[in-house]
Each structure stands twice: as C-alpha cells, then as structure tokens.
C-alpha cells in the first residue's frame, strides 16, 4: 500500500516534469521563430523596401493588364496625323479604318475623349476642351506655348519648358516640340482575335459568324473560315501561333527530360539496389553518382548545358533529364529493394535466366509504381520547364520573361500566365487520372 502511494507519487512527479518540459518547448519554439523573423526583417531590409516599392508601377501593371490606349499622334514637324493602338507602328489604322471618335482630316482632328472631354488639332494649334475648366490652348508652331486664362496652372496640367501633359479622367494629352499625342483608354485586350491587317478586324462575333457562314468570299485563295483561322493564328500583335508553339516546346522539354531520365535511370537502378547489385562497390559508386547528379541541380546543369548547346528547348530538356536521372535512380532503386522475391524464385525454378527473371518477375511488380512516379514528375516538370525555359531561352518561359522585361505588355503577361496555369492544371488532371488508374489497377493501364 505504502509502495503503491510512493509509485503514484513518483509517477506524478515524472508526469509534472514532462508537462513542464513540453510547456518549455511550447514557449521556446515560437520565441525562436519570432527572433528569426526579427533578424530577417532587418536582413531583408523590409523598411527600405517600403520606400523603394514603386506603387505607381503596380498601378500601371494592373491598368495595362485589363485596358489599352489608342494614340492620336501629330508629328509637329511634318504635320502628319496617325491613329495607332498603343502607338505601335504595327497597329496603325489606315485612313478608312480610323474609328469614329477620332475625326481626322489632312491637318486637323477632332478627338472625343470620355466624360465629355475632347481635343482638337487645328494645324499647330492644339485645344483641350475640359467640361469644367474650359479651354486649354497649346501653340506648337514655335516651341510649346501653353495659353491659359488662370494665373496658376491647375494640377492636372504638368507643364515644364518644352513639354506639357494633361491627365484627366477622360484621357491624356502630351505635347512636346516634336509631337502631340492624345491617348484614349479602352477596357479589354486590343485586337486579341484579329489585327488591323485582317479583314475581320473590328467585326463583332456575330458579324464574323455571318461572314464565315453566308458572306461573300473575301480572299479568292481561301475560304472565309480558313482566312479567319489563319488571321487568328498569325495575329501580328498576339502571335497566337508562336504562343501555342512555345507551350508545346515547354511540354516537350518536360516530356523528353522526364521520360529520357526514366529510361536511363531504370537500368542503372538495378545496380544501385541492394538485392540486385553485382557488388557493394558498384552499388556505392552508382548511388554516389545519383546523389551527385541530384545535388548539382537544374540551375547548374542549365548553365553548363547552354554553353555547349546554346539556348533552346533541347538544352532545357537535357537539364531536366540530368537532374531527374538522379531522383529516379534513387526512387527506382528503393522500389526494386521492396520487390517480392517469391516471383523471382518461381521463375528461377523454371530455369529462367537473369534477363527473363527481371523481365517477368521484377518489372511487372514495380511497373505501376514506377510509371506513377514518372507521371508525377512529368506533371511537376511542366511547371519547372517554364522556369528552366526562362533561363535557357525556350518555350513559354522565354516569351514570358521577354514580355515582363519590356514592361509595356502586361496584357500579354496576363495572357501567358493564364495559359501557363491552364497548361499546368490540365497536365495535373490528366496525369492524376492516369496515376489513379495505375495505382488501383482497374483499367487497361498495364
């Protein structure tokens, strides 16, 4: 009885000590994390970042991603007036195509902006009509001469020397010695389907359908439908054809890399598995080789390979191939170590040689696991191939980095990101479905 109480007492003490230890750990871990975050806060210079961050860039990015602007430009030296989307030479309206809101004659123009604002060009005299403020006249015949009635310049006008810019909710006017530019903003992505060179440009979906089904043949060489498809595919601004090629290139990199790596790793894995390796030395060497290749990492491989093969999808595929050979070698040799020996013994009893034993006794056992691992890697490599493509210069990764680096085409960046997400989600879904079948083994997966 006394003993039992003593035992109970000891147990109680031990338990209290244990709870105390747990409490201590419960406090220490958050405290360490907190201290680490404080250190990182200073190491990453978060305070400085708040100052450096360009929120105006963020605003440009967001507005450009969902809208575009059309420029009405007057060359102040020659007096020529052009209307172009985003001021791009490739997207300049021909004289018949000029939209209604810009009424352009030889040397004068009447431009209607939003919210009741409008701008007139009358030779060198530019007038901005503001519904609340009134008229603002700028004479460009000799330098840039801003004429307003008021003493102080209102804050929507930014005037300095030979430069005047007016920014309102209706649009933007910018005047320099060499050119006058009025910009009107529109929602959406410009010319996503057809560029200005296409006869379908500016048509609504219904009109396009009309033309394709019942309209007179536009081009004697092509049917209207063929023309529509080819105009869309070869759209000079969005380059849909090239984008699809780039997506294909990215998937190709992942495909070649993943399956190539699997084909190389499978035979090597036999030498790295304890139960198949011919000797301990061979096993050790092959294992270290796998570890080495895995450790070298895709980044180092891409650099070394692009020096030898130049930029392109092949370089990316090889980089993925080399890295994954290491990962697959490790995974496959682990799978081989877990095979059931009975089937191999059974085959050996019928006099099968090593090749036959492996083909009929081992491969059928590990194939579903292997294929499912390979598919999983294929799926995750489509994502990596985008990143590798950004470094080696191939596939959609290249288009994306180009679009981001010009910092003017955010609508294209948005388009590419949407396509990448769709591609990855589609690959996930397809490979997920196949893997589920392989693991359950109910389908014709074998």
């Amino acid at each position, binding site marked *: 009885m006394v003993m039992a109480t003593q035992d109970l007492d000891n147990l109680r003490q031990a338990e209290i000590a244990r709870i105390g230890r747990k409490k201590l750990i419960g406090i220490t871990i958050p405290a360490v*994390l907190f201290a*680490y975050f404080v250190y990182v806060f200073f*190491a*990453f*210079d*978060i305070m400085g*970042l708040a100052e*450096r*961050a*360009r*929120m105006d860039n*963020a605003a440009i*990015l967001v507005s450009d991603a969902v809208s575009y602007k059309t420029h009405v430009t007057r060359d102040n030296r020659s007096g020529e007036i052009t209307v172009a989307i985003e001021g791009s030479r490739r997207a300049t309206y021909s004289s018949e195509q000029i939209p209604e809101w810009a009424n352009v004659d030889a040397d004068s123009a009447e431009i209607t902006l939003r919210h009741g604002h409008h701008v007139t060009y009358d030779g060198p005299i530019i007038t901005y009509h503001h519904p609340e403020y009134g008229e603002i006249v700028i004479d460009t015949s000799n330098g840039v001469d801003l004429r307003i009635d008021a003493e102080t310049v209102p804050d929507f006008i930014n005037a300095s020397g030979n430069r005047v810019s007016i920014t309102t909710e209706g649009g933007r006017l910018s005047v320099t010695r060499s050119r006058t530019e009025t910009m009107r903003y529109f929602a959406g992505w410009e010319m996503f389907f057809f560029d200005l060179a296409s006869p379908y440009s500016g048509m609504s979906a219904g009109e396009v359908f009309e033309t394709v089904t019942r309209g007179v043949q536009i081009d004697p060489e092509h049917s209207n439908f063929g023309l529509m498809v080819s105009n869309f595919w070869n759209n000079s601004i969005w380059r849909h054809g090239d984008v699809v090629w780039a997506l294909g*290139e990215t998937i*190709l*990199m992942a*495909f*070649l890399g993943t*399956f*190539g790596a699997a084909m190389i790793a499978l035979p090597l894995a036999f030498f790295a598995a304890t139960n198949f390796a011919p000797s301990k030395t061979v096993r050790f060497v092959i294992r270290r080789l796998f*570890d080495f290749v895995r*450790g*070298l*990492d*895709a*980044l*180092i491989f891409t*650099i*070394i*390979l692009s*020096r*030898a*093969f*130049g*930029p*392109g*999808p*092949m370089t990316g*595929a090889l980089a993925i191939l080399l890295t994954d050979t290491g990962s697959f070698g490790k995974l496959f040799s682990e799978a081989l170590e877990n095979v059931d020996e009975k089937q191999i013994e059974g085959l050996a009893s019928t006099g099968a040689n090593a090749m036959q034993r492996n083909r009929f006794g081992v491969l059928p056992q590990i194939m579903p696991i292997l294929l499912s691992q390979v598919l999983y890697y294929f799926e995750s490599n489509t*994502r*990596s191939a*985008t*990143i590798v493509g*950004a*470094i080696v*210069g*191939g596939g959609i*990764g290249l288009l*994306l*980095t180009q679009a*981001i680096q010009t910092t003017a085409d955010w609508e294209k*960046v948005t388009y590419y*990101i949407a396509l*990448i*997400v769709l591609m*990855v*989600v589609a690959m*996930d879904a397809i490979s997920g479905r196949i893997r589920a079948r392989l693991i359950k083994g109910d389908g*014709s997966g*074998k």
Partner: protein
Amino acid sequence: MAETTTSAMQRADIETVREDYLHMAQRRRLYSGVLILIFAVLMISGFNTADGRNAGGFWDGLHRLGDFPADLISEAYAKAANLPGHVLNALPALIETVNIAAVATILGCAGGVIFSLLGTRGLAYWPRLIPVFRRITDVLRAIPEVVVALVLIFIMGGGPVPAMIAIALHTAGAMGKLFSEVNENTDLKPVEGLQSVGATWGQRIWLGVIPQVLPNYFSYGLLRFEINIRASAILGFVGAGGIGYELKNALTFGHGKFDEAAAIFLVLFLTIVAVDQLSSSLRNYLTKGSF
C-alpha cells in the same frame, strides 16, 4: 468408363483455358507493343523537334560539353589560392539564399496549414467553401515561382523579398494539398470528444488535430525546404538576389572571374547536399524515432 469422360472433359477445359490465356497474352503483348511503338515515335520525333529548334544542335554540342567545366576548373586551379577567399565572399549571398528558402518555407507552410484545414472534409470551418479553398491552392500551385518573382521585381525592385513571396505562395499551394491529404487520415475521435465538451473550432483543431498531424507536417515541410533552396538559387539567377545573382554576375563577366564562379558552384553544391542530408536524417528521425 465414367472416369475417362471426366478426364477428357477436364482436358478439353484445360485446352480452352490454355487457348484463352494465350489469346489474352498475345493481345496484351500487341497492346504494349503498340504503346511502346507510339512512345518511341514520340520520343524520337520530340528529340528531333527540340533539336531543330535549339540554337546549337545536339550532336554539334556534345563534344563541347566538357569545354565549359574544363575552362572553369582550369582557371579555378590556376588561381587556387583565391578560392578560399571567394568562398568566404560568397557566404553572405549564400545566407541570403538560405534565408529566402527558410522564411518562404515557414510562411508557406503556415499558409498551407490554414488552406488545408479549411479545405478538408470533416474539419473545415465553412464546409460549403471547401471547393473554393481547394481551387485557390490549385492555382497557387500552378503558377511557377518565376512568374510571381518577375512581376514583383517590377514593382519592388530586385532583392530577396520578391523571391521570398513567390516561393512562399507556391509553397502554400503545394503544402495545402499535401497537408489536406494528411488531414484526411486523422482520427476524428479526439475531435468529437472535444466537441462533446463544448470546445470551439480553434480548440478542436489545436488540441485534437494538430498533435496527430504535426510530425507529418514537419516532415513534408523539411522536404519542401530542400526544394525551396534550389528554387531560391534559380530565382536569384533571374534577378532576385542571393547566390544565384552572384553566380550570374560572375558568369556574365566570363573569363577572369571563372574562379569566382567555380567557388559559387562549389558552395551551392555543398549546401544543397548538406541540406538534403540533414533533412533526410531529421525526417528519418520523425518517422522511425531514431537517426
């Protein structure tokens, strides 16, 4: 008399079974033959396409494969005395890369825990919103880090923070999925027990679920840390600070700084291997209870 008929019948049966089996085996062999053929055609034509679209061809480049490593090693060897100095110089950048990965892993895992708890049947706070949270994790997982990093660099300028945010977002997506698979295997009895004594949702999760899943979370988190170190080095190369950025600078300089590049390669390789080893022995400890 009767016996012979049965054995004859049995023999006939065996005969049909045999025939059926051979038939099936043949059909299977045909199918797998066709599959292998399609696969081979895809591989070969894929190789040719990729080769054709590459700046330098595969066969032309093959013999040049060793040139760059040879350049690197010979220059590093010639200036072997500088190597320790370069390794020391690379350390701050290396620490930055590791910090990016560590912070991104911690923040991403925290986000992943939240997404996974909100997206698991039986545990979710708003059961009706489960599909919404699952789709969010899907999208976070699908966007490659480089995309987010480049956009953030445009807004915030270069440095470790864009890379950190990019990796953390991706990690949150990936971990959200893995953790919710872990959550699905939890024993719901402790949760029900807590519910019966009137525990709130937070208490049920904190006391009933987290103790069950924490070792698994931790092990996946470590695995992710390995992956994130590599990702952080790659993002540095694209312009987001850390050792990748230093490597790019040394490489664009070309000859003359190859010893520096070699030192960075070495440091990066050793770090990756060390982190891999450390995390795999920690994970072994978590699953088996011993190193």
